[in-house]
């Protein structure tokens, strides 16, 4: 048993303070990492969808000349997998598939000549979407001469 005096002495010793000077640097590093690997969300997705998985996927090169089309179920409820009408969303808003040629033409008008030639349509389609709807969208894209399409998918290794 230790003497009384030494016990009291020990408890009164102050805890050395932690040096947090490098903490902002660490957080900045994480911040820069996120700024590099992510990109700004361009438009709010109003339909629920899950893209399929593929092996032979490539990265999309030019961001400016990409038009996004989302096909998924309408409605916000995440829990229900069934239900909700199938809807097509072009960039920011839900559209009727028949209006796509006019809208593509409008978008194309706002692009530079270089990007007009490179115009790519990125199709993000839900796994369960019927091909009838997808091919209707594709036929409309064909009519608008937006012939470069990209079936968006998540990559899986072979």
């Amino acid at each position, binding site marked *: 048993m230790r003497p009384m005096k030494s016990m009291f002495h020990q408890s009164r010793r102050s805890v050395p303070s932690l040096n*947090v*000077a490098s*903490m*902002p640097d660490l*957080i*900045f590093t*994480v*911040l820069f990492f*996120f*700024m590099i*690997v*992510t*990109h*700004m*969300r361009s438009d709010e997705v109003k339909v629920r969808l899950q893209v*399929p998985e*593929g*092996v*032979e*996927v*490539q*990265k*999309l090169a030019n*961001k400016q000349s*990409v038009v996004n089309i989302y*096909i998924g179920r309408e409605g916000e409820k995440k829990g229900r997998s069934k239900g909700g009408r199938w809807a097509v969303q072009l960039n920011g808003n839900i559209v009727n598939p028949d209006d796509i040629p006019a809208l593509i033409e409008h978008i194309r008008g706002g692009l530079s000549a270089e990007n007009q030639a490179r115009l*790519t349509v*990125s*199709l993000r*389609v*839900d*796994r*369960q*979407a*019927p*091909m*009838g709807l*997808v*091919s209707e969208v*594709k*036929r409309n*894209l*064909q*009519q608008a*001469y937006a*012939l*470069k*399409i*990209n*079936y*968006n*998918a*998540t*990559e899986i290794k072979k």
Partner: protein
Amino acid sequence: MFRKRYRQQIPELNTTSTADISFMLLIFFLVTSSMDTEKGLLRQMAPPPLEHEQPKDINRDNVMQVKLDGNNQLTCDGKTITYKELTAAVRSLAFVNRTGHVISIQADAATTYEAYFKMQDAVVIAYQELRDEYAKKHFGHGYNACTNDEKTAINEYYPQRISESPIQEGGAQ
């Protein structure tokens, strides 16, 4: 006198809140940005058919009929096959008849997109394998390591000849 002033201690800047500020920035970026990748299967569609255009006749032996029915059943020339077998079949066809073969794809209106995408992927895998082999044989490295000129040469050697028939309406829609 001057000496004394220099020896005065410079007051330290209080940087405790820098961490909080950068945390706030970090959280802002996490919320406004998305991680989902811009990756996908790149395809080139044919231009819309002209009115006076006559469909070309192709030798039936060189055509491979790939069909997906409403129940996502994959058939190739009438036989039920898997995606792996489709890759092998496309590969052997494209290897034997490089520039004359045609892969005809047809899907039903009720086919799910996932099945269609897997089928497209299986076909592209076959071409990619052939191109990769060609690149290794002639350029000594894989397709992905090729320069753009080399890639163009390979793509011309093994062209992707896929024809997509329009979906017939009617049936289950």
